[in-house]
C-alpha cells in the first residue's frame, strides 16, 4: 500500500458503498447497471476508449437477427447516464489490496490527450489529423486516424489520441526536430506545415538538410526491416520546395522583450540560439570575428555540398526576425558585454583551429591544413594544388578536402586513414560520392615522415597499421606493423586530422578543461559564470553542425529561464526515453528501398563546385515519406489543437493514477477470438480471401469499412461461393483449447445466413464437426438456415486450403465424414469461425486479485453448480466470458447474477455502518 495521499482523480466520494466492475463489455455493463439500480455506486473500468466490448463490433445477433449496435446503443447510453455509475474508460486496474468489504484499488487512467469533459465528439480533430492507421474496431480492414472514436456510438462520446511514447528519430536528433510529424505532413502534401514543424526546432532546414550527419536515420525503425527513411533529404526537400515556389511568408521581427542577449560567434550554435531567442521575443546581438556569418558551415563545407545561397538565405531569415549581427568584431571580455547592457551571454566561438600532425616537415610548401585549405577555397582565394594530392584523416573535413582538391584540378587524390573503412567517421554517402568521383582510399595507413626537398613537399613516408585492442572510444586502436614502411610521392598534402578550440581572450573568463573547451552544466549549458552560457564546438570540441544547433536551442531555453528568474534545470533531467517500436506485422511487411537522391553526373561534377545532390521531386518526397512506419501513431503535428474549437486537446496530458475504496469487485474482462493464423494449413494471413468471423462481421456491417457490401479482400468482387469453417481453435487439445468455443456454431450459422441475405445468389457452405445449437431458439434458427436460407451444411473437417494464385480463389481439401471419400471443393471466400480464448489481460489481473484461473486460462469459479459467479476470493465475482465462452444472453445473465452477489456484500456494509442506501429514482419506461 502506498502512503501517499490517495487521489480520486476528481471523482466524488460516493455516499453509498461502491463496487468495481472491471470490463465494459456487455456483461460488465449489465453488472454495473444491476448494482447501480439497487442504489449502490459503481466504478466501471474499461481498458479501451469506449464501452460496448465485442458486441459493438457485431453486425446482427443470433437467433433473431437483431442489429447488434441497435440493441446495444440504449444500454451504452443507460450506463453513461446512470447517476450511480462512474465510467472510467481508457483505464486499467493496476493494483488491488484489502479484502471483501474493503478493497483498495489503484487505477491508471491513461492519457487520452483530450479532455473528456470538454470534448463534444464533433470530429473536427479527426478531419485534420494526417495519421491513418488500421482500425482495431474494423479488425484492421479499414483505417482510423490517430485521433479517433472507435465507432460512431462510442461511449463516452469523445475522441482519443493514440500516442505511444517517443519516436526514435526524434529522440536521436540533437535539435529535437519532430521528424515523424513533418514526414507525415509531407506524405499528405502539406509542405507548408511540415516546414513550420522543422522550423519549430531549428532555423536550418535547407542547410542541415544537406550536411547533417542524420543520426535520426541511424535510429529509424524502418532500418530494422529494410532501409531507414531518408529523413535528412526530406527536410531538405521542404526547404527546396519553399525556395522554388517562392511562397515564403514575409518574416517580420517580433521583439517584445527588453532584456538584451549577446551571442559571441555566428556559427551554427550561435545563430540557432539567436533564432530561438528571437522567436521568444528577445533582442539579440551576434558578434562575429569574421566578416560573414555561418562559421564552419560557411568556411569549411564546400559549395558543391552546401550552396552558399542556401546558407545565406537561412541566416538572412534569422536576421529578419530581428537578430542583429555585428561582424569583424572579436569580443574579448564579458564585462564589456555587460557594460553594453547585455543581460545574458552565449559563447559559441567554435573549434576552428586545425590540429597539426606534429611530425617534421609539416611547414613545407605544399602542405595545407584542412580547415585553412577549405576556408581559403571558400573565400575564393587562389590555392595552388599539385597533381598528386594526399589527404590525411577520415572525417568529413578530409573527404571534403579530397573532393575539393579534385575539383581544383588534382589528377590523383589519395585519402590516407589509419583505421579501416568501417571506422571511417565521415558521412557514408559522402565517402561513396568521393569514391565515385575517383578519390583513392588508402586504409590502415599512417604517415610517419614528410619527405621534402628545399622546403617543398615531395612525398610521404607511411606505415601499414593493424587493429589492436579497443580504445576508450570503443574503436580498435590501430598499431603499426613493424617494417612495413613505404613511400608515396605527393605534390600536395592536406592534413585533416581534426580541429581544436583556439585560445581566445574571452575564454579566459570562464572555466575550461585541459583540452581548452569550456566547462558547462551539461543540462543547462551554463558556464562557471552565472548568466554566461556556452555551446557548440567550443564546448564539445570539434563536432557536428547539428549538435551545435541543438546546443543553441538548449541555451536559448536556459537563457529565457535565466532572464525570467526561473530554475534552469527543472524538468530537463535529461531523461532517456525508450523509443517506441512500430506496429509491424513482419509476415505481411513489404520491403521497399529508400529513394535515392538524384545526383549530378560524375563527369560533370568532378571539376565543378555545382551542387552534387539534386534534391527530391514532390512525388519522390511524398513516396519516401510514405515509407515512415509512424512508430508513435500520433506524430504531434498538433493540427488537431488548432482545429478544436473547445480547447479540449492537451498533448502534454499524463497518465493519472487514482485510488478507490470498494466493497466488492466484479471481473468481466471478456475474451478474444483465437488467433486462427496458428492453423497455417487453413491459409489465414497468407491468402487474402481467407478471413476470420470478426472480420466478416465488419465486412457485412453497414457502418463497417465497406459500408456493408460483402466483398472479398483480394479484388473487391462479390463472393459467389462462400465457405464457413467451424471449430478453428476450439475442441483442439493440440492447440491448448480443449473446450467448445460455445458461440461459434451459432455465429457461424448467423454469418452464413447473413451472407445469403447480402448476396442471395451466393452458395454458402458450412463445414462443421457438430452443430451445437443449444440455446433458446437456436435449434429453430439452425433448421431455418437449412430450409429457408438454403445453407449447405457439411459435416467434415477441412484439411487444407490452397489458393489459385491468379484468381485468388481457394481450394479446400475436406474430409467429409458422411461420405466415404474426401473431396476437393472450390470457394471464392473462406471464413474461419474461431473459438474463444481469455482476454490477454486476464492472467495479470487474476494474479493481482488473487483469484485462480482454470487450465483453460479463464477465471475459475468457486462451484460450477452452486456458486457459478463466485471466485475463490470472497467479494470478488466473475461474469461473462471471463469465466469461459458465453453468448450474449448468458453473459448478460451472469452479469446480473454477479451484480446480485456483489450487492449482497454492499448491503452488508451498508447495514453495518447504519447507512441508509439512497436509491436513485432512475428507471426506463416500462413498455406495455
Amino acid at each position, binding site marked *: 500500500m502506498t502512503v501517499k495521499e490517495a487521489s480520486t482523480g476528481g471523482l466524488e466520494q460516493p455516499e453509498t458503498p461502491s463496487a468495481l466492475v472491471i470490463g465494459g463489455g456487455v456483461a460488465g455493463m449489465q453488472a454495473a447497471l444491476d448494482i447501480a439500480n439497487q442504489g449502490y455506486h459503481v466504478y466501471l473500468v474499461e481498458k479501451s476508449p469506449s464501452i460496448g466490448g465485442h458486441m459493438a463490433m457485431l453486425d446482427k445477433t443470433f437467433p433473431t437477427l437483431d442489429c447488434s449496435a441497435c440493441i446495444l446503443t440504449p444500454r451504452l447510453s443507460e450506463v453513461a447516464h446512470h447517476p450511480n455509475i462512474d465510467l472510467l474508460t481508457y483505464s486499467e486496474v493496476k493494483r488491488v489490496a484489502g479484502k471483501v468489504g474493503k478493497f483498495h484499488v489503484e487505477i491508471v487512467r491513461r492519457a487520452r490527450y483530450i479532455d473528456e469533459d470538454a470534448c463534444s465528439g464533433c470530429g473536427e480533430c479527426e478531419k485534420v489529423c494526417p495519421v491513418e492507421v488500421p482500425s482495431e474496431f474494423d479488425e484492421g480492414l479499414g483505417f482510423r486516424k490517430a485521433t479517433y472514436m472507435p465507432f460512431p456510438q462510442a461511449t463516452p462520446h469523445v475522441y482519443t489520441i493514440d500516442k505511444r511514447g517517443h519516436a526514435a528519430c526524434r529522440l536521436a536528433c540533437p535539435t529535437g526536430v519532430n521528424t515523424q510529424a513533418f514526414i507525415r505532413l509531407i506524405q499528405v502534401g502539406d509542405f507548408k506545415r511540415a516546414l513550420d514543424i522543422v522550423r519549430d526546432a531549428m532555423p536550418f532546414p535547407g542547410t542541415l538538410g544537406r550536411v547533417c550527419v542524420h543520426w535520426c536515420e541511424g535510429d529509424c525503425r524502418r532500418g530494422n526491416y529494410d532501409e531507414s527513411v531518408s529523413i535528412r533529404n526530406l527536410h531538405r526537400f521542404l526547404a527546396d520546395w519553399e525556395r522554388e515556389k517562392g511562397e515564403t511568408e514575409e518574416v517580420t521581427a517580433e521583439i517584445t522583450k527588453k532584456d538584451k542577449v549577446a551571442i559571441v560567434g555566428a556559427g551554427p550554435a550561435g545563430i540557432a540560439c539567436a533564432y530561438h531567442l528571437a522567436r521568444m521575443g528577445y533582442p539579440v546581438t551576434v558578434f562575429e570575428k569574421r566578416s560573414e556569418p555561418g562559421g564552419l558551415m560557411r568556411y569549411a563545407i564546400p559549395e558543391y555540398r552546401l550552396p552558399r545561397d542556401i546558407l545565406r538565405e537561412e541566416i538572412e531569415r534569422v536576421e529578419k526576425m530581428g537578430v542583429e549581427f555585428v561582424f569583424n568584431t572579436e569580443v574579448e571580455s564579458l564585462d564589456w558585454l555587460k557594460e553594453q547592457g547585455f543581460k545574458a551571454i552565449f559563447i559559441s566561438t567554435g573549434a576552428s583551429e586545425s590540429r597539426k600532425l606534429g611530425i617534421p616537415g609539416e611547414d613545407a610548401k605544399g602542405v595545407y591544413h584542412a580547415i585553412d585549405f577549405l576556408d581559403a577555397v571558400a573565400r575564393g582565394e587562389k590555392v595552388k594544388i599539385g597533381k598528386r594530392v594526399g589527404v590525411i584523416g577520415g572525417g568529413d573535413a578530409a573527404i571534403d578536402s579530397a573532393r575539393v582538391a579534385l575539383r581544383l584540378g588534382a589528377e590523383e587524390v589519395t585519402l590516407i586513414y589509419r583505421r579501416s573503412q568501417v571506422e571511417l567517421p565521415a558521412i557514408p554517402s559522402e565517402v561513396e560520392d568521393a569514391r565515385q568521383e575517383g578519390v583513392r582510399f588508402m586504409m590502415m595507413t599512417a604517415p610517419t615522415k614528410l619527405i621534402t626537398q628545399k622546403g617543398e613537399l615531395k612525398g610521404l613516408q607511411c606505415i601499414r597499421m593493424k587493429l589492436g585492442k579497443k580504445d576508450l572510444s570503443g574503436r580498435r586502436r590501430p598499431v603499426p606493423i613493424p617494417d612495413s614502411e613505404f613511400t608515396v610521392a605527393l605534390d600536395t598534402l592536406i592534413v585533416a586530422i581534426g580541429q581544436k578550440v583556439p585560445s581566445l581572450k574571452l575564454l579566459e573568463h570562464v572555466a575550461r578543461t585541459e583540452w581548452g573547451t569550456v566547462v558547462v552544466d551539461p543540462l543547462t549549458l551554463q558556464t562557471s559564470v552565472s548568466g554566461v552560457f556556452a555551446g557548440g564546438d567550443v564546448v564539445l570540441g570539434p563536432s557536428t553542425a547539428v549538435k551545435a544547433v541543438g546546443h543553441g536551442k538548449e541555451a536559448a531555453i536556459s537563457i529565457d529561464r535565466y532572464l525570467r528568474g526561473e530554475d534552469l534545470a527543472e524538468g530537463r533531467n535529461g531523461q532517456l526515453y525508450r523509443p517506441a517500436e512500430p506496429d509491424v506485422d513482419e509476415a505481411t511487411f513489404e520491403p521497399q528501398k529508400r529513394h535515392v537522391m538524384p545526383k549530378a553526373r560524375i563527369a560533370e561534377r568532378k571539376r565543378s563546385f555545382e551542387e552534387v545532390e539534386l534534391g527530391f521531386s514532390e512525388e519522390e518526397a511524398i513516396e519516401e515519406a510514405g515509407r515512415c512506419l509512424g512508430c508513435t501513431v500520433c506524430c504531434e503535428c498538433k493540427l488537431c489543437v488548432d482545429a478544436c474549437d473547445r480547447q479540449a486537446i492537451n498533448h502534454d496530458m499524463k497518465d493519472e493514477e487514482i485510488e478507490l475504496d470498494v466493497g466488492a469487485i466484479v471481473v468481466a474482462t471478456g475474451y478474444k477470438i483465437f488467433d486462427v493464423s496458428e492453423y497455417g494449413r487453413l491459409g489465414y494471413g497468407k491468402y487474402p480471401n481467407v478471413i476470420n468471423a470478426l472480420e466478416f462481421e465488419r465486412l457485412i456491417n453497414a457502418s463497417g469499412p465497406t459500408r456493408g457490401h460483402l466483398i472479398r479482400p483480394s479484388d473487391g468482387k462479390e463472393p459467389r461461393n462462400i465457405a464457413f469453417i467451424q471449430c478453428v481453435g476450439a475442441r483442439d487439445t493440440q492447440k491448448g483449447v480443449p*473446450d467448445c468455443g460455445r458461440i461459434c456454431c451459432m455465429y457461424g450459422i448467423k454469418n452464413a445466413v447473413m451472407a445469403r441475405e447480402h448476396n442471395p445468389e451466393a452458395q454458402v457452405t458450412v463445414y462443421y464437426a*457438430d452443430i451445437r445449437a443449444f440455446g433458446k431458439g437456436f435449434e429453430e434458427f439452425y433448421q431455418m438456415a437449412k430450409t429457408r436460407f438454403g445453407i449447405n451444411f457439411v*459435416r467434415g473437417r477441412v484439411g487444407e486450403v490452397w489458393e489459385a494464385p491468379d484468381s485468388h480463389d481457394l481450394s479446400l481439401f475436406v474430409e467429409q465424414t458422411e461420405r466415404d471419400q474426401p473431396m476437393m471443393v472450390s470457394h471464392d471466400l473462406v471464413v474461419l469461425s474461431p473459438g474463444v480464448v481469455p482476454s490477454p489481460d486476464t492472467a495479470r489481473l487474476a494474479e493481482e486479485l488473487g483469484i485462480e484461473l482454470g487450465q*483453460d486460462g479463464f477465471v475459475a469459479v468457486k462451484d460450477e453448480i452452486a456458486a457459478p459467479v463466485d471466485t475463490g476470493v470472497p467479494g470478488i465475482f466473475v461474469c461473462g466470458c471471463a469465466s469461459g465462452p458465453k453468448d450474449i444472453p448468458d453473459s448478460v445473465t451472469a452479469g446480473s447474477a454477479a451484480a446480485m452477489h456483489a450487492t449482497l456484500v454492499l448491503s452488508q456494509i451498508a447495514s453495518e455502518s447504519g447507512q441508509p442506501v439512497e436509491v436513485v429514482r432512475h428507471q426506463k419506461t416500462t413498455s406495455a
Partner: protein
Amino acid sequence: MTESEEPRIGVFVCHCGHNIAGTVDVERVAKVAATFPHVVFSTDEMFMCSDSGQQLIRDKIKEHGLNRVVVASCSPRMHEPTFRRVVEEGGLNRYLYEQVNLREHVSWCHMHEPEAATEKAIDLVRMSVARAARLESIPVKTVQVTPRALVVGGGIAGLRAALDIADRGFEVVLVEKRPQLGGHVIHWTHMFPADRSGREVVSPMIDEVMDHDLITVYTDSKVTALDGYIGNFDITIKSNKTGEEHKVKVGAVIVATGFEPFKPIGYYAYEDSPDIMTLAELQEMPPSDELLRPSDGKPAKKLAFIGCVGSREPGVKGHEHCSRYCCSAVAKAASDLKDRVDEVVVLYQDVRTYGRGHEEIHRLAREKRVIFSKYNPDERPEVWVKRGKITMRWRDVLADDLLEFKPDILVLASAMVPPEDVEEIAKIFSLTRSSDGFFNPEHIKLAPLTTHTAGIMIAGVAQAAKNASETVVDASGAAAKAAALLARGEVEIESTVASVNPDVCSSCHTCITACPYGAMSIDESHDPPVAHVTEAKCHGCGTCAAGCPSGAITMLHSTDDQILSMVEALLMPAQMSGGEAR
C-alpha cells in the same frame, strides 16, 4: 405546456450511418420537413441515438423553444424510450415526442428505389409532424413498491432466487406446488460436471431457506391468482391439500416453474420394457456398485443411450428445441457407467457438450471406449422388445452401415418440456410462450430475465431448457432485477391508458367484457354509474375504446384526433402550408 400554446416542432432526421442515408435522401427529407406547419427547426444527423445526437435535441429544444420533437430514425421499439428520456431531460413531457420509422419502414424495405423511398419518408414525416402538433402532455405516474417478492417454484432456481433476495434484506414468499422443495435436482443421484448428487447440492439451500427469517414457504400450494401491477401485485396462494387460500401483497415476482422431463410415450418402445427408461429416470436410480436391470435386478452388461428424444424434431410443436443439458449429461453418465458395464453405445445427432469442461467428459467417454454413433434424424433408430429383450437397429451415418445392438438397458435422453400447468401459469402471470413452450423473455439477447409484464421475472428452465449451473446463474440474475425494484421503493407506470368520458358513457358494460386485463369496472359511486379504468392494470391495448358503442373511451396518446390528423396529412398534403423557415 397548455393546449393553447402554439406547437413549435423540431424534426431530426437520422442517417443511421449508411442504414437510412444509403437509400433515403435524408438531407432532402429534413429540408422539406422544415416547410411543414409548426416546424421551426429541422435537420439531419449521423446518429440520433448517439450522445451527440441526444445532445443536439436537448440543445435545440432550448435554442428554438421547441415544445414537440419528432425524430425520424428507426423503430420506436428500440429508441422511443431513449428519446423520451432525452426530451424529458430537455424539459418536455415525454409524450410530446413522436418517432418516425425510416429504417424498417422505408430504407430497408425499399433499398432499390431510393427516390420513391425518399418520397415515402417525406410522407411519413409529414404525418408524424401533423400528429405531433396534436400531442398532449400526460402526467407520469408513480406508485409505491411493496418491499416483498414472490418466488414461484421451489427448485434450484427458486431456492437460489429466494435466498439472494432475502439475504439482500427483503421478504420473500416462496410457493412450491409439490410437497417438498428441491425440484428435480434433489432426485438426481449425480450431476454433471461435478461428481455430486443433486441432494448434496440443494439440501443446504433448502435448510437455509427454511431457516431464513425473511422467507415464508408454501409447499404443496399454488398461486391461483395474480392481481395488480408492478410494485403492487395481489397474490392468492391456495393449498393443494386443504384448499385454504392466502392473500399476499408483493412488489416483484420471479417465475421459476421449471420443466418436466418428457415422457417419451410412443418413442423407441419406451413403454414396452421396464429396462427402457428416460435419462431423468436413470438419474433417479438409487446408487449401487453395479448397474442393475429393473426388469430382473440382474447386473446390466450392455447399455445404450439415444439422444434427442422429443427434442430437435422440426415441425413437431413443442419439440423443435434442443434440450441443452442432455448431451453433456449423457456423456457423463456414459463415461461413469462404462466402468460398471462392458459396452456402452450412444446414438446422437450432434454431440453438444458445449460447456466449460464438458468436452473433457465427452473425450473421457470416448477414451473409455464408449461408442458414439451418429444417426440421421430423418431415419431414426428402430427399437423393439421381444420376450423382454431389447433390440435396436440404426444406420450409422459415418460408416453408412446398418448396425444392431441388444442393450440390457436403454436410456432415452428425453426432452425438457414445460410442466403440465404451464398454460395456467402463463395466464396468471400474463406471460407469453415461445415455440419451445417455455416463457418468452422481454428480449432474447439483452433482457433474458425480465418479461413483457413489468415486475415479473423468469428464471431457470421456465425460460428455456438449460442445466443446473445455468439455472443458478439465472436465479441470481433475476433476483438482482427484483432487488432493484424493491430497493427503489417506487416505480413509474405506463400513462398511455384508456380514459372514460363519463358524460357520454352509457354504462353498457361492453368494455368490461372486452378488457383482457380486468382493468375496466363500473364506478357505482358515480351518478349515473359509469365505466372506470384501473390505470395501473391497463395495458393501453385499446380494445375497450374500439368496442365502446358510445365513443366514450379515449386512448391517451392515441386519440382519434391524433390518428385522423395523420390520415389527413397523408391524403391531403395540399392543405398543408409552409411553416416558419429553419
